């Protein structure tokens, strides 16, 4: 008979918690006004080298608008005008609704359709929404205080559903494009904001996410692909928005992801091992760590110092590296990175939805009103 009377003495080690990290910072000043002006200019005219981004202009607008929101400076722009312009980018259903599977938002007016911010949609063989534009369009409307009443939700969700592939990932456009984790995140944000998950097959998307977990416990853009800070954020944030994070990943798996992410910090953060640090990863990885409750263990001082070293003291904004040209993307994510660190002059950012907490609360109120409406109708 086996001896079952086993006495086990378990060794346990415990580190004492360190105190609050925001103490004596080297005083690199944060130039709030410069950044406000940087975003203002970005909303007016962009330099020629941005022309290749014309088709994705709405994302740049989102960076500028949300950046101003984080700076608590949205009052400097004409919100109503901006809202009108965003609505003009909505790909609405035609009279006969034959284009429902191509609805959503466009990146800009580059297709050449006449300006119109009201329906019905105009038939055009190659006009269709782009998943990232639909996401940033909705997010921009929200942070501007709009009530989304002119969004054709049914059309957006139909268009979204048409983009999902058998393996659970999404195309960006109905004609086809690359498919990866970025677009799963866009889809999750769209469904979350519209409070309607019929726009995607959650189960398949979750399976895709699980298959994208890599040997080193980071998450890649797809199965068998290299772990990346951006795709890890997209995966974790999507699961959080779906409300399925703890259900999908065991505590052990979550620990492993925490470990991979926390090792991305060098001074600031990089996106993959042995790559140089880049300002935007202070948000991508920082927000992931925040969603996993371990951001507190990072080194705030080094992170802040790096982000501020990429600040452009003349024109405002942030660049990915020091002594480089700033751009709206890095300016926005640099601010978000600082916001995670609790920078005093900045609004708090919702780490999963990537808008200010204020915009997030506005969304919650809207959704409550929608639900009250529904229940009062039935």
């Amino acid at each position, binding site marked *: 008979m086996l001896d079952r009377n086993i006495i086990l003495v*378990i060794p346990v080690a415990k580190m004492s918690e360190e105190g609050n990290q925001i103490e004596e910072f080297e005083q690199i000043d944060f130039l709030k006004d410069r950044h406000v002006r940087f975003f203002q200019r970005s909303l007016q005219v962009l330099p020629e080298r941005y022309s290749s981004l*014309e088709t994705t202009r709405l994302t740049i607008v989102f960076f500028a608008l949300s950046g101003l929101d984080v700076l608590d400076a949205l009052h400097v722009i004409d919100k109503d005008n901006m809202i009108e312009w965003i609505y003009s980018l909505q790909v609405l259903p035609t009279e006969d609704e034959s284009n429902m599977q191509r609805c959503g938002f466009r990146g800009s007016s580059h297709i050449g359709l006449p300006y119109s911010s009201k329906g019905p949609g105009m038939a055009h063989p190659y006009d269709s929404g782009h998943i990232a534009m639909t996401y940033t369009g909705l997010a921009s409307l929200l942070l501007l205080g709009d009530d989304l009443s002119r969004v054709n939700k049914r059309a957006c969700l139909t268009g979204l559903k048409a983009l999902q592939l058998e393996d659970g990932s999404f195309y960006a456009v109905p004609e086809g494009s690359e498919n990866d984790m970025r677009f799963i995140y866009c889809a999750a944000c769209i469904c979350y904001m519209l409070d309607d998950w019929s726009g995607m097959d959650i189960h398949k998307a979750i399976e895709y996410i699980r298959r994208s977990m890599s040997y080193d416990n980071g998450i890649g853009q797809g199965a*068998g*692909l290299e772990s990346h800070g951006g795709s890890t954020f997209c995966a974790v944030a999507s699961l959080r928005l779906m409300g399925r994070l703890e259900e999908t990943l065991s505590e052990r798996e979550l620990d492993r992801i925490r470990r991979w992410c926390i090792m991305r910090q060098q001074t600031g953060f990089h996106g993959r091992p042995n790559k140089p640090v880049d300002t935007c990863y202070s948000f991508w990885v920082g927000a992931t760590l925040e969603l996993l409750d371990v951001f507190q263990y990072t080194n705030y001082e080094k992170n802040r110092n790096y982000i501020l070293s990429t600040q452009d003291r003349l024109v405002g904004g942030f660049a990915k590296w020091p002594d480089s040209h700033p751009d709206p993307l890095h300016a926005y994510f640099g601010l978000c990175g600082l916001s995670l660190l609790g920078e005093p002059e900045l609004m708090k950012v919702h780490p999963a939805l990537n808008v200010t907490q204020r915009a997030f609360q506005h969304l919650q109120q809207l959704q409550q009103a929608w639900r009250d409406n529904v229940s009062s109708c039935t």
Partner: protein
Amino acid sequence: QHGRLKIKSTAQQEEEKRKEREKKLKLYVTARDVCFSQRKEGVLDEEALQLTQQLLSSNPDFSTLWNYRREILIAPGDCEEDDVQKIYESELSFVERCLRQNPKSYGSWHHRGWVSARLPRPDWVRELSLCDRCLSLDERNFHCWDYRRVVVRMSGVAVDQELRFTDRLIGSNFSNYSSWHYRSTLLPLLHLESPEPLSPTPQLAKTSPRTNSHRVCEEQLLKEYELVQNAFFTDPNDQSAWFYYRWLLGRAEREEMISCVYVSREEERVAVCFSKPVHAVGLMLVLDGQPQQVEWRSVHPRLRHSPVWVCDLPPATISDIGNEHNLTVHWTENHTHRDCALYTGRSQSWCRDSATDLELFRSELSVEKTSVLQSELQTCNQLQELEPLNKWCLLTIVLLMRALDPLGYEKETGFHAVCLYGDLCSKFIIENTILKMEYAEVRVLPTLCHLDQLLLVTHINLSSNELERLPPQFCMLQCLEVLEADNNSIVDLEGVYQLPKLEEISLKNNKISKIEDLALLASCPKLRSLDLRGNPVTQMANFLSDIAKLLPSVTDLQL
């Protein structure tokens, strides 16, 4: 918005640039408008290809245009195969020019993949050489790596050839993280543990996506350990090798399987222990050839992933000690099962890992596993002497010590290992965030190699361990009769929940302060002895009456 460094330029240079930009802009806008009016009218031809070419050269992420080109290319026509070949080949040259300008364009790489898949006579050697050139410029370009994987898959390149490719890259630069990553996907394919014989040259056909969770045979594993050790001895501060190493060490982990089945007549309960925490769906119990209608549950409601799952049998099914029963637990999801025989005259029975497994590193007591891990630990300790502050090394040492089974050691070395563990902690540098995180959580239970023993443990002594809580995982100890956890800082007894055989608990000198903290003990039906001396709760007013109400069957109460 890729990084652009600031470079000052003279006024004249600025002016030249401006003029050139204006020219480009005019051309761009004209071309674009013609292009769209043509597409609208359904004009698909040579001219359209020319125009889109101009536009895409400066704007490779204009996906509509790539789609337009694809429509043109697949438009039906009376084309000989040779003509098609020529058209697609010139397409490849065009994409190559785009890639040279912008090697990170999603649109361009996507299009190249599309074209390659349709080429009547693909030239995979050329595609691989394109990847080589691209990677020599930027060995971390994941677009290029991903495309290379596609090419390899479509052309049926042998796995070991690709492994040699990574050998070359790693050999010239150990810090090539993307190469190590690629290697992690290739290795399990080459040396898959499977009952069927391997084909002579295993190829990278359509494989199941998560091959990194497959196991690797010991021979290959040992060779890999050597390769990795070379890497981290050469540059101990490079992350690549350490990450890969950690993954390799994990390859010795057991797959998900049922490691133990335990059945008790008295509680009329069956407990199943898995080799790692699982969310067990598809568990089926067959008793004496009859499938049973039972509800399986995790041992603790908070554990969705639990190493132990239990179910209760219908009353009087197995309670008669004169009857013999045969049980089988099927785990349909993983196609495994485990049998257990409950003999006459026996009130309980269990069955554990047997020696019939073909897979390696199965039992935690196997000589191979322990010796391999011990030798790895030795190697890391050697490195640690040379590089005492290297955090990667320290982390890996900790990982190895946790993985090694202290019960496999001699008594003395076992305790020595424990002390060394504690020593390492005091060495940790305070601002080392990773190590901080590793120890932020109190770890009660040791590693998975103990799991099938823990289910059967009857006594456990956790005294003097700075514990603050007994977490939900503690519920795994379904056979526990005596719990000693004196001289800790315990406030939380969450894991002492519905332990069916627990009779005695000693919690002297802990920090239990509220009667509510003891509430869960009432869920243990056999509890009769409780020692709470040295806990603040004993000083509360009405403690004696409260505890009598809460735990009426505890007859032996020490305060």
